[in-house]
């Protein structure tokens, strides 16, 4: 029989063509259809077969043979003389099947319902005896199978089948059963892992910066391995949406954790619809080896669908970390008015998480959302845009996966039109702010009250981390807040933040995300005020003050240009920080309608924060009057700078 394989192979390859031809002819020629339907072969079993079934016979035979050998092998003791030949035969068939399936899986699925085909597959987190395990779940049209990854050396992965459930025996539990034990024996500390990850990433970047000309790669590799290890911990720990599958045959339940509701719905829908269509005879036994063979066969064509991190090669730096500002504008190309909303999901080390949902726009043919979102990227590659129609059960109208890449993402906003389907186009805008390294500060007093130059030297940056981190956080969620920068934060938050920034920058950044937004603005103002020398420097303060006082409000233009000249004399580092702050304040001001922060208010708040006389310059004669005049001037000077910047744009 082994020699006949080629013949079988030819037949199998032709099988699709034959069926197609039969179908095509039946479709175009009623007479042919009639003939086909009359070709009925009577076998001894009294079972009648159609031409299609007949053509399928040899196909089935190959599979059956594989099964027979399998069973034989299982029943034959290893010391039996037949064992060796049987094993060989099985191997040959297996190889043949593997070879064939690689080709065959690309067959259009509708061509034959009897042929096993893969419907969905994805890596997934399964809860096994209280532990989260990484698995790969395969849904075929007749069986669902779960496999374990086995690393086979460099960049190669094999699968080891853990279990399978025939489709007819599957039951789905969408909701977590409160009675069911979902206890995890050792739940991971996600924030701890993220924190470690952050520090390893910083180390790597430092490494890269220090030996950009090559040199020691080995310690870099060590960090990279550590990075991969931490990332895989995250992959296991982060999903928390439960999906449970039951096996009616043995009443066992399998529990999975998924990250996105979209994925969960897709799995459930696929299984449900397959079950409805499923008209396979119940006698079809499914065998573990056969399933394994299929899985192995699928493997080659699957790489792209797998968790990004698994197939990641060590030099691949494509996972993004930072903030993605995404604007959702309007949708074009609807045929009729519908109730629509959009969900945005972002992947993080392979898992997608829902990050934002737009409001629903009712009965519009050209829905316009004009909403913007701040999406936090952490180990991300893609953004998934899902267009839903509001119904009793939301109906997915279209989806699009947008690959995020530094090749097109920039720190300036850019608009893109995204084709969600043949006809639907969604206007979007994107701005990416890369995440920054946060290097731990060491001792108390090293930040608040320390000199700007020392802070920058220790942090090895152009802008103190605390400034950029606070600004980023305000832009994330504070721009529409009434009294942004005016309203005070809570004293206890401020002292917590202060402590955090002095001890561990990562901790501080986490805390920034949790505290009241006014505490974020408060800590920034505190830092600036506690600098021993204000950003506009002690040395130049009298010059700013005199220049401002020398011109009246009527000479605004000259006054501003003279002030700008003095500004140029500031040290580079100060100019950089001031510019960043001013640009940010202008963005705050652009939202005045919401946050009520006029230029006057912003200048009032930041004038005395950024400009103040040095300790030795304070005139003591009439401190009250002098300081009030000073404060007026400080606010006035900042007002000039803010206006100059607006005009420049």
């Amino acid at each position, binding site marked *: 029989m082994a020699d006949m394989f080629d013949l079988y192979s030819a037949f199998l390859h032709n099988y699709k063509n034959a069926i197609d031809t039969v179908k095509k002819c039946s479709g175009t020629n009623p007479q042919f259809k009639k003939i086909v339907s009359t070709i009925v072969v009577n076998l001894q079993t009294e079972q009648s077969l159609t031409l299609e079934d007949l053509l399928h016979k040899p196909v089935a035979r190959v599979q059956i043979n594989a099964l027979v050998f399998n069973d034989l092998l299982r029943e034959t003791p290893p010391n039996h003389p037949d064992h060796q030949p049987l094993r060989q035969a099985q191997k040959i068939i297996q190889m043949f099947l593997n070879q064939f399936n690689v080709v065959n899986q690309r067959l259009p699925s509708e061509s034959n319902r009897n042929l096993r085909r893969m419907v969905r597959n994805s890596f997934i987190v399964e809860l096994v005896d209280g532990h989260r395990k990484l698995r790969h779940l395969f849904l075929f049209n007749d069986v669902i199978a779960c496999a374990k990854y086995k690393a086979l050396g460099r960049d190669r992965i094999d699968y080891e089948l853990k279990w399978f459930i025939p489709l007819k025996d599957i039951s789905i539990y969408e909701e977590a059963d409160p009675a069911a034990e979902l206890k995890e024996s050792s739940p991971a500390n996600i924030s701890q892992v993220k924190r470690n990850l952050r520090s390893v990433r910083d180390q790597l970047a430092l490494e890269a910066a220090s030996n950009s000309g090559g040199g020691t790669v080995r310690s870099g590799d060590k960090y990279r391995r550590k990075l991969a290890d931490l990332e895989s911990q995250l992959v296991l720990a982060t999903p928390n949406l439960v999906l449970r599958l039951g096996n009616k045959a043995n009443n066992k339940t399998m529990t999975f954790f998924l990250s996105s509701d979209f994925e969960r719905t897709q799995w459930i829908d696929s299984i449900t619809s397959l079950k409805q269509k499923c008209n396979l005879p119940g006698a079809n036994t499914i065998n573990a080896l056969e399933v394994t063979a299929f899985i192995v066969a699928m493997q080659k064509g699957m790489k792209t669908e797998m968790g990004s991190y698994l197939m990641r090669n060590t030099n691949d730096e494509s996972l993004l970390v930072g903030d993605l500002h995404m604007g959702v504008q309007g949708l074009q190309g609807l045929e009729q008015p519908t109730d629509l909303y959009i969900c945005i999901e972002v992947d993080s080390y392979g898992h997608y998480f829902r990050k934002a949902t737009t409001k629903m726009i009712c009965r519009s043919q050209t829905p316009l959302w004009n909403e913007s979102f701040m999406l936090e990227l952490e180990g991300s590659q893609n953004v998934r845009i899902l267009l839903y129609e509001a119904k009793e059960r939301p109906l997915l109208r279209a989806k699009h996966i947008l690959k995020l890449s530094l090749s097109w993402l920039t720190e300036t906003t850019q608009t893109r039109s995204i084709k969600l389907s043949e006809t639907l186009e969604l206007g979007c805008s994107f701005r990416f702010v890369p995440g920054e390294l946060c290097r731990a500060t060491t001792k108390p007093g090293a930040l608040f009250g320390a000199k700007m130059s020392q802070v920058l030297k220790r942090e090895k940056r152009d802008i103190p981390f605390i400034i950029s981190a606070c600004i980023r956080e305000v832009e994330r969620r504070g721009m529409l807040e009434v009294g942004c920068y005016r309203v005070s934060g809570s004293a206890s938050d401020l002292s917590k933040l202060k402590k955090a920034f002095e001890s561990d920058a990562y901790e501080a950044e986490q805390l920034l995300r949790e505290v009241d937004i006014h505490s974020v603005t408060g800590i920034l103002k505190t830092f600036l005020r506690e600098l021993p020398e204000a950003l506009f420097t002690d040395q130049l303060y009298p010059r700013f003050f005199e220049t401002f006082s020398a011109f009246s409000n009527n000479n605004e233009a000259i006054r501003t240009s003279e002030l700008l000249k003095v500004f140029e004399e500031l040290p580079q580092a100060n100019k950089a920080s001031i510019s960043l702050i001013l640009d940010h304040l202008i963005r705050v001001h652009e939202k005045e309608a919401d946050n009520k922060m006029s230029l006057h208010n912003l200048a009032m708040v930041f004038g005395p924060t950024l400009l103040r006389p040095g300790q030795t310059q304070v005139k003591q004669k009439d401190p009250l009057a002098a300081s009030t005049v000073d*404060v007026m001037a400080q606010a006035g000077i900042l007002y000039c700078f803010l206006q100059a910047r607006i005009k420049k744009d």
Partner: protein
Amino acid sequence: MASRKKSLLKVIILGDSSVGKTSLMNQYVNKRFSNQYKATIGADFCTKEVVVNDRVVTMQIWDTAGQERFQSLGVAFYRGADCCVLVYDVTAPNSFKNLDSWRDEFLIQASPRDPEHFPFVVLGNKVDLDNRQVSTRRAQQWCQSKNDIPYYETSAKEGINVELAFQTIAKNALEQEAEADVVNDFPDQIILNSQNNRPGNPDNCQC
């Protein structure tokens, strides 16, 4: 005795930004309320003649920028205050929590003779808004714990309790004044002020 009393009372209003300090002063002095959202620059004062205990006194009310905590104005501004009004916004829990630090800071900067009994008045402003977050009980408890500070709930917008609150402020300020008179012979104030004006202080050199 009465003739020796000052007829000018210095009242200082403190509290977080945008709790309504300026609005309260405006409501009390000018009977006006503006919806304008405007931060106060430095400090400003208004005066108003009030009758307390059958005496006409001038109340000098200092409105401050909640923003610039004690930095630019500092000691000079707080000195000689007869009463300190602490304002918070009943819809902003933080502004209530920060009352502690405003009170402490005032006592440090103003260094009144008898900090334990210096007259404070606490105003919970914006009671006209419906998203109240600090309960009356909580505020009263805090006031009780600080030597029974008088507490009023006000709305600068609707003019609720503003008049009443400032009457109490004037009364308490005057009482402080009266008590101060008893110890009038002690020259503390002169010493404190003279520090700033001491001849030969290099910082003071005008040449």
